[in-house]
């Protein structure tokens, strides 16, 4: 029916009609939607619907394993926690482990085999393989190539051995984009063979760090963080000297730090060695470098045990020198036979692969869970060369850049739905068991190798069991069940080997070349790019820049001034004929002439989340695996670069010195005394209740790794908002890690301060709420009642700690970012936490669902909740145990004890908000003869 606009015009009669008809519609059904209950036909044994079950499994990180416990509810994995029985890791997690559960449900994961861009089947592939390259046993599989990442899994290694038995001419190339070639070269030079060097940070009295970041992301991170925290928690002081070419988490923990260009590190290492009777020639050092070396050397000589750590962007000779000095100092390091048995170094292997592909020697190519097209400097060239290979197959969880170039793509199962085994960097073997049946028609890597070998078809579980059958002893089933329950194969950690480090020879150190030196380091959020399609990780603020959804180039203020750019301005980097456009992040403490950037962004076939984020820095490399590139010229220009950062969203009112008190250990008590308000407030204290929940966060232990942020996101269904909303200041993280930089007498010092809701006893957010949506409960929690909230945001403006987050849109219901609203992603949601809708304020609840669960357990036994029974997600995740939670009214609880610590303080105490979340101040341990 066509109507003229005049007829559509609403008059009084029409308005009344609409009003009464809508009222009538509303009255016809006031009740609830019809719902069904669908029980099992046959209930699995011991299953109680709604009760979380924990399974031990392991997750790969650059080929190494780390033990995790997967929490599943009604068969859905919803959260991962560290496995305390994985002694190497110590029970914490990092952001990669926490976010794996989101990757499991990623809608972009490959679901079915694909041939030439068309849906195919596994049967079709096995047929083509058997009649094609797989039939070539007569010539021993000549021209066949296998490309993998680092493999430590005994079952997979056995699978590769079987494949090589069948095809003796098969060539294997193994590389990791974020590789450890420099430490390997160092070990080869010092010990004459490949050895893994595992440092024990906790046992060293003095640590000298040469451009290394033991607390940065990586397979050893959990081990290092745990050891670091155990030492800091003990009363024995430790001193950390750091010389580095960029900002690292270890540098932020340093008692003394200098920033130098990466080439100077070799000189500093030599000067340090000459203090220990090694004739290294007399390198010329600047006054500040000399001072650094003198204090470090003096400290090392005085200390009981010293430890020297060299970084992965440094050369093999610096590592060899560090090994030599460590053996002189009897440093606490374990030498282990490598968990990765491959002899060849990563860069050599990768170059050989590039050469063989280009020369056309490879006739059939199998790429197993690697992405060489993205990792290679000249992606287009490599993609073209791979496309020319007659038979090429890419196996991975995603149809990525390399899959695009290959004829076949085979989908791999996610680690959380696979059987398998992995070795931790400490050498212990971890078992993987699936938390859920494969969501799609995928295979695990072990099954795939079995398929390529054309052996009798076997499930992944049987393959793993068959591989372990000889180790199980007489009662294999008993052994298997025990190992699976623990997640760790008993007594599998190897004993350290002994080796003597030879005095290394010295190369002549060249002067730093013209131009800027660019160090490429693995991203603290997406590692080498393999996690780029994980929205939690993309929106996880980088430690110093607080950048999300991108990888800006970190420049020193001097360089930035010379180029004429500021924080967030567009720049163009050029090396030879390669040029890339990027964004500058200007950071104090970055040495002049050195820039630093993160790998892993700039992907074009990552998926809906990761495509087109940031810049692919490896385009500047000669091959793609170089980690330090000299002679870069930088100029302003390019597309208007918009840096996405959460840095200034939540700036607290006050002087940084007062918000983040910092002093030498001897002075901290008097420093904090200055901050104490003179008088108490006028509001009377809360009435007593058995429980008064409180949290104490130790700034001295916080290394800024963000594990708590992602753990909170996973536990509490915290939404991702995307880069555009971040630019408007609307990120939703309930817990953030603030970074502070303070100019102290001896230079710039940095520190991290995690800020969840303070649960103030006299909460400023409560009296301003017109609908009483922000109220207190009897146990001291400041609770937000979503159903009452009408979204005035008065509470947010009145919160001095800026911890409240508002759903400007339906970020988690109806208007999700990217593909996060698709059904598979919803399966990740924690059923014990409300999913918040549009127009509602939300914030940290102290994980009230966990308190509630613990209270019910205790009350069923007619007792009070014990100390340590409630642990919020952030506290469980923290690899340094910096977050303690408990009942303040129990004098024996951990939090009550910590509140008597001389370093204890409340944030913005002068406001008399009486926060339940309090802090222990960061201190440093000044070198001898220096008061701080």
């Amino acid at each position, binding site marked *: 029916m066509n109507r003229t606009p005049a007829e559509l015009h609403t008059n009084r009669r029409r308005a009344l009609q609409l009003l009464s008809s809508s009222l009538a519609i509303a*009255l016809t059904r*006031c*009740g*609830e939607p*019809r*719902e*069904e*209950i*669908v*029980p*099992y*036909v*046959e*209930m699995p044994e011991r299953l*109680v*619907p*709604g*009760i979380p079950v924990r399974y031990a499994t392991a997750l790969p990180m650059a080929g190494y394993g780390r033990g995790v416990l997967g929490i599943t509810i009604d068969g859905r994995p919803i959260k991962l926690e560290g496995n305390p029985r994985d002694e190497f890791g110590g029970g914490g997690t990092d952001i990669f482990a926490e976010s794996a559960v989101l990757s499991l449900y990623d809608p972009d994961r490959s679901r079915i085999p694909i041939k030439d861009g068309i849906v195919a089947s596994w049967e079709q592939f096995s047929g083509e393989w058997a009649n094609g390259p797989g039939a070539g046993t007569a010539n021993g599989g000549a021209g066949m190539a296998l490309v993998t990442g680092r493999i430590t899994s005994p079952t997979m290694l056995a699978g590769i051995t079987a494949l090589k038995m069948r095809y003796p001419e098969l060539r294997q190339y193994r590389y990791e984009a974020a590789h450890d070639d420099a430490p390997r070269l160092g070990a080869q030079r010092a010990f004459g063979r490949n050895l893994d060097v595992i440092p024990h940070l906790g046992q060293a009295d003095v640590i000298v760090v040469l451009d290394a970041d033991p607390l940065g992301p990586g397979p050893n991170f959990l081990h290092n963080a745990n050891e670091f925290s155990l030492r800091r928690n003990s009363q024995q002081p430790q001193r950390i000297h750091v010389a580095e070419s960029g900002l690292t988490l270890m540098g932020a923990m340093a008692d003394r730090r200098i920033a130098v260009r990466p080439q100077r590190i070799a000189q500093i290492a030599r000067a340090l060695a000459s203090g220990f009777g090694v004739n290294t020639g007399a390198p010329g050092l600047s006054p500040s470098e000399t001072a650094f070396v003198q204090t470090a050397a003096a400290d090392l000589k005085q200390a009981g045990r010293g430890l020297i750590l060299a970084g992965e962007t440094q050369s093999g000779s610096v590592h060899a020198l560090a090994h030599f000095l460590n053996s002189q100092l009897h440093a606490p390091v374990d030498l282990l036979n490598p968990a990765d048995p491959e002899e060849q170094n990563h860069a050599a292997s990768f170059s050989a692969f590039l050469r063989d592909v280009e020369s056309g020697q490879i006739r059939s190519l199998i790429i197993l869970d690697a992405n060489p097209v993205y990792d290679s400097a000249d992606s287009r060239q490599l993609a073209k060369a791979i496309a020319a290979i007659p038979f090429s197959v890419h196996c991975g969880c995603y149809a990525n850049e390399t899959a695009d170039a290959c004829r076949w793509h085979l989908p791999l199962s996610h680690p959380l739905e696979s059987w398998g085994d992995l070795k931790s960097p400490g050498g212990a073997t971890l078992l993987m068991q699936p938390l859920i049946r494969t969501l799609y028609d995928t295979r695990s890597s072990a099954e795939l190798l079995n398929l390529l070998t054309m052996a009798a078809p076997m499930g992944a579980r049987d393959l793993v069991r068959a591989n372990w059958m000889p180790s199980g002893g007489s009662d294999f089933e008993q052994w298997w069940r025990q190992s699976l329950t623990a997640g760790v194969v008993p007594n599998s950690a190897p004993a350290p080997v002994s080796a003597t480090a030879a005095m290394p020879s010295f190369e002549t150190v060249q002067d730093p070349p013209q131009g800027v030196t660019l160090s490429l380091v693995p991203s603290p959020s997406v590692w080498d790019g393999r996690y780029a399609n994980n929205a939690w990780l993309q929106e996880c603020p980088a430690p110093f820049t607080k950048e999300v959804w991108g990888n800006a180039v970190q420049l020193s203020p001097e360089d930035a001034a010379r180029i004429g750019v500021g924080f967030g301005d567009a720049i163009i980097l050029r090396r030879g004929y390669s040029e890339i456009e990027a964004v500058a992040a200007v950071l104090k403490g970055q040495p002049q002439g050195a820039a630093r950037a993160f790998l892993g962004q700039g992907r074009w076939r990552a998926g809906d989340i990761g495509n087109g984020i940031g810049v692919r820095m490896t385009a500047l490399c000669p091959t793609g695996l170089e980690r330090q590139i000299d002679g870069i010229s930088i100029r302003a220009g390019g597309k208007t670069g918009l840096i996405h950062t959460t840095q200034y969203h939540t700036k607290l009112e006050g002087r940084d010195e007062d918000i983040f008190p910092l002093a030498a250990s001897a002075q901290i008590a008097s420093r904090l005394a200055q901050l104490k308000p003179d008088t108490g407030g006028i509001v009377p204290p809360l009435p007593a*209740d*058995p429980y008064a929940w409180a949290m104490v966060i130790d700034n001295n232990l916080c290394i800024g790794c963000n594990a708590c942020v992602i753990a909170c996101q996973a536990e509490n269904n915290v939404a991702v908002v995307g880069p555009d909303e971040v630019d408007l200041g609307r990120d939703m993280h309930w817990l953030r890690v603030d970074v502070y930089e303070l100019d102290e007498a001896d230079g710039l010092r940095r520190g991290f301060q995690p800020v969840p809701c303070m649960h103030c006893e006299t909460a400023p957010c409560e009296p301003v709420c017109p609908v009483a949506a922000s*109220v207190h*409960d*009897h*146990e001291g*929690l400041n*609770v937000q*009642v*979503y*159903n009452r909230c009408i979204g005035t945001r008065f509470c947010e403006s009145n919160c001095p700690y800026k911890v409240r987050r508002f759903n400007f849109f339906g970020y988690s219901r109806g208007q999700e970012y990217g593909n996060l609203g698709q059904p598979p992603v919803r399966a990740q949601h924690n059923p*014990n*936490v*409300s999913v918040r809708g549009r127009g509602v304020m939300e914030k940290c*609840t102290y994980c*009230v*669902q966990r308190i*509630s669960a613990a209270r*019910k357990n205790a*009350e*069923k036994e*007619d007792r009070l909740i014990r100390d340590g029974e409630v642990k919020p997600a952030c506290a469980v995740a923290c690899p340094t145990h910096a977050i303690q939670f408990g009942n303040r009214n129990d004098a024996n609880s951990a939090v009550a004890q910590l509140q008597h610590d001389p370093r204890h303080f409340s944030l913005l105490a002068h406001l008399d908000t009486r926060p339940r979340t309090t802090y222990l101040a960061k201190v440093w341990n000044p070198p001898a003869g220096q008061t701080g």
Partner: protein
Amino acid sequence: MARTVMVAIIAVPILAIVLTFALWESPYATSQFVTQNQPVPFSHEHHVGRLGLDCRYCHTGVEQAAFAGLPPTHTCMTCHSQIWTTAAMLEPVRQSLAQNQPIRWVRVNRVPDYVYFDHSIHVAKGVGCTTCHGPIGRMPLTYRGEPLTMGWCLSCHRHPGSFVRPRDQVFNPDWQVPEDQDRAGAALVRQYMIDTSGLTDCSRCHR
């Protein structure tokens, strides 16, 4: 005429408000006493009231989990593979087992998603089945015995002493409130260590 209009101007809004509230609390809105069409006309009156089956025989999760649980088809078939094996009424149950397809029951007792109700703690603290589910042993077809509104929840959370019963009576469908409930209930609240101060906190049921 003018007088009628004046009365109407005052009375109509008042009546409308009264009517709205009455409707709001009425079974029409709360679905109280409403039976649903179920795939099998299961009778609690028969199984519980007459045969005396324990609630926990079918609702196995009630002492451990938030959700009391509905029985898997196998539980029905423990008896019905022996008795009434050809009853037409039980055809959906037999089909469910034969085809390995679950029976899809229509939900009768429901609280909104933002309410995190937990059966196990209520049962442990002496709240009986019939306190919330009504005279279940006398229901030929199951209906919602109580309104399950927040005000109704709070009536007990404010005064648990009026409702709690001895632990051995929790699953008794015929339990009657004794005359001395005021005294006995108060004693039980002390015995169960129920801290009434926090029972009406928002965070008790909403997260």
